[in-house]
């Protein structure tokens, strides 16, 4: 009996002691961060993002240095989250340790906006910031259901067709303009298992525009609807190219990790990739001669995807004024110009795009042209669940293990039951 009491007392004491410790550290932090961006006072804003290649890192550093010069009382602490970016961000936000400003992919935006973890930015915007200068679809991707803007897009990329000039010359074929042409050309370019005509990424993120090209919808009312016969019909050619024509392959079939690598190693004559592949190919495979073209038309219509990333602000940030100054600078005309100057990503501001003239760059022109008709990679809060299920099952159809319609039906069922019980 007495023993038990003792145990209870010690237990209670240790818990108290623990909370005391926790309380202490909490207090300290509150004092430290009680800045709020008053003039003359040093404020440190944390900015989190995923790393890029060294040149991108250099560009960002330069942009941040310029910012610090302009606002000497604000210091930016840049943190790189190298892997599983969203998992880390969500966990840190839930734990109250989130960065003040961070990158957010349009794909993840609706779900995160819905949780209320982000600060609406409308009230900070001034006329000087010129909100109408942004490409509208990219900006709309970060609007909540309440119509408020939760982030400003820092850059974007669309998809384009990358082709190996030498292989095209050897095979004596022209760059395809329609999807049917692409299929024929791919057959001619294929050399057994050594070179595939077309490298495919069997993922929804890269197939979404194709899936919807025949009038079907991948997502309806925030639920999966990709088992629609029209979607199946639109995706069937991709599967057929792999299973029947044997003119298409996914990167891991030839030992590559992604399309750019597959293309660079000369194992695919064509791939559909984004802006990010251009510097990668130029740096890693300097002898490769390649060109880009707009994605072949389907049913006479031009289509492509657009991927965009924004700077967003943590709602629990204690330095919102300073955080806004940072976002304002980074997505402002000056900061965006520095950031996109080398063409690693395309500027979301029309004025910056016009000034930098990427629409005249032969490799980037097809990507810039895509912006006007691209589908932004985003669709409601459940797209991550839908995508995961689609990707998992689509592969089995792509590998020819079962019919596409059946695989997609099952994936849709799984996705929707997961959404329903959420």
């Amino acid at each position: 009996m007495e023993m038990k009491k003792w145990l209870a007392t010690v237990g209670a004491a240790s818990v108290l002691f623990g909370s005391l410790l926790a309380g202490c550290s909490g207090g300290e932090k509150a004092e430290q961060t009680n800045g709020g961006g008053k003039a003359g006072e040093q404020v440190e804003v944390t900015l989190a993002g995923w790393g890029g290649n060294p040149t991108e890192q250099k560009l960002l550093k330069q942009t941040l240095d310029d910012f610090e010069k302009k606002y000497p009382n604000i210091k930016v602490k840049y943190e790189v989250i190298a892997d599983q970016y969203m998992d880390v961000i969500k966990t840190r936000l839930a734990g109250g340790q989130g960065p003040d400003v961070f990158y957010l992919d349009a794909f993840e935006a609706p779900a995160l906006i819905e949780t209320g973890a982000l600060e609406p930015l409308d009230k900070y915007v001034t006329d000087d910031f010129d909100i109408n200068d942004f490409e509208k679809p990219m900006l709309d991707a970060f609007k909540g259901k309440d119509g408020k803007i939760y982030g400003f897009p820092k850059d974007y990329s669309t998809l384009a067709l990358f082709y190996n000039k030498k292989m095209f010359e050897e095979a004596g074929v022209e760059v395809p303009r329609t999807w049917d042409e692409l299929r024929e050309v791919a057959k001619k370019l294929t050399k057994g298992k050594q070179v595939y005509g077309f490298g495919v990424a069997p993922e929804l993120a890269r197939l979404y525009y194709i899936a919807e090209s025949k009038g079907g919808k991948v997502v309806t009312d925030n639920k999966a609807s990709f088992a629609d016969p029209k979607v199946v019909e639109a995706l069937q050619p991709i599967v057929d190219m792999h299973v029947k024509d044997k003119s298409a392959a996914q990167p891991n079939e030839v030992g590559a990790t992604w399309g750019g690598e597959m293309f660079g190693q000369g194992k695919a004559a064509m791939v559909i990739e984004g802006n990010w592949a251009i510097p990668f190919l130029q740096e890693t495979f300097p002898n490769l001669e390649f060109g880009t073209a707009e994605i072949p038309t389907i049913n006479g219509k031009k289509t492509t995807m657009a991927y965009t990333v924004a700077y967003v602000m943590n709602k629990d940030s204690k330095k919102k004024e300073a955080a806004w100054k940072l976002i304002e600078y980074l997505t402002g005309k000056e900061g965006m110009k520095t950031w996109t100057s080398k063409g690693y990503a395309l500027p979301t501001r029309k004025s910056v795009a016009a000034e930098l003239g990427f629409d005249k760059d032969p490799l980037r022109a097809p990507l810039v042209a895509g912006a006007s008709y691209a589908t932004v990679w985003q669709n409601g809060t459940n797209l991550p669940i839908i995508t995961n299920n689609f990707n998992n099952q689509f592969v089995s159809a792509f590998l020819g293990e079962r019919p596409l319609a059946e695989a997609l039906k099952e994936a849709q069922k799984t996705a929707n039951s997961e959404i329903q019980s959420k």
Partner: protein
Amino acid sequence: MKRMSTKRMWREAGAGYLFLSPTLFVLLLFIIGPILFAIFLAFHKVQLLGTTSFEFVGLDNFKRMADDTRAKIALWNTLKYVIIVVPFQTILALVLAATLNAGLKGQKFFRIVYFLPTLTSSAVLTLIFMWMYNQNGLINHVLKAVGLPTYNWIGDPDVALNAIMIMNIWATAPYFMVIYLAALQDVPDSLYEAAELDGASAWQKFWHITVPYLRPVTSFVVIMGLIGTFQLFDQSYIFSSGSGGPNNSTLTVVLLIYQYAFKTLGTMGYAAALAFALAILIFIATLLQRKLSKEESLY
């Protein structure tokens, strides 16, 4: 007199607990606390981001498992993995230990070589194996050289889980081998001598003396193996970069828990319920194993 002794007892117990308190504090904070909290979470619908909310939903999280196709696939994959990996790694460990204890030349060298994989972190090991499993990697080259068919080890849904199994058997067996080796030192030589006098062959000695003598250790190895294999996570996580693909073939229960806890928003409660169910499953498997091996000694 009686009072005195109670007082003394109090003081002694007090001093004892005072010394224990740091440990108790750590235990409460990092082990018992989280376990209780996880059980609490399992009965709630939890939203941690933004506006934190806990809504009591009773057994809903557990009922949900019945309709969850992915949970069923994950469970099936995990069971398949356990059923194949545990016997293989146990037998391999026993055979390795017996050969390394037979007094061969250079056995110390081989002990070290065999033990090396255990010292490597599983994440590094997985990455190295992924290189070897690459379509143009070492393993396919070797297979081709000896005229066997090659596989897309990482991308083919039929093969991916087997690739992880092979890797794990190779990596974990040596650890259990060391445990067997230690136990083998305890087997009295007199038993072998007596068997030799009776004209027993090497195989008979192994089967009738070594194996029965090591039974308690085998029981330990199997239980630890069960617990370890049920919790398969890092290898399949790295293999599929967190998705459990291709075609859900490397989706394990713990990977699914991870996905629900950190990938999808607002399913932390369901993840906790799955974790709770897995704990019960491991508990049952362990009890079954003990029942079957009729082992009296406790671990």
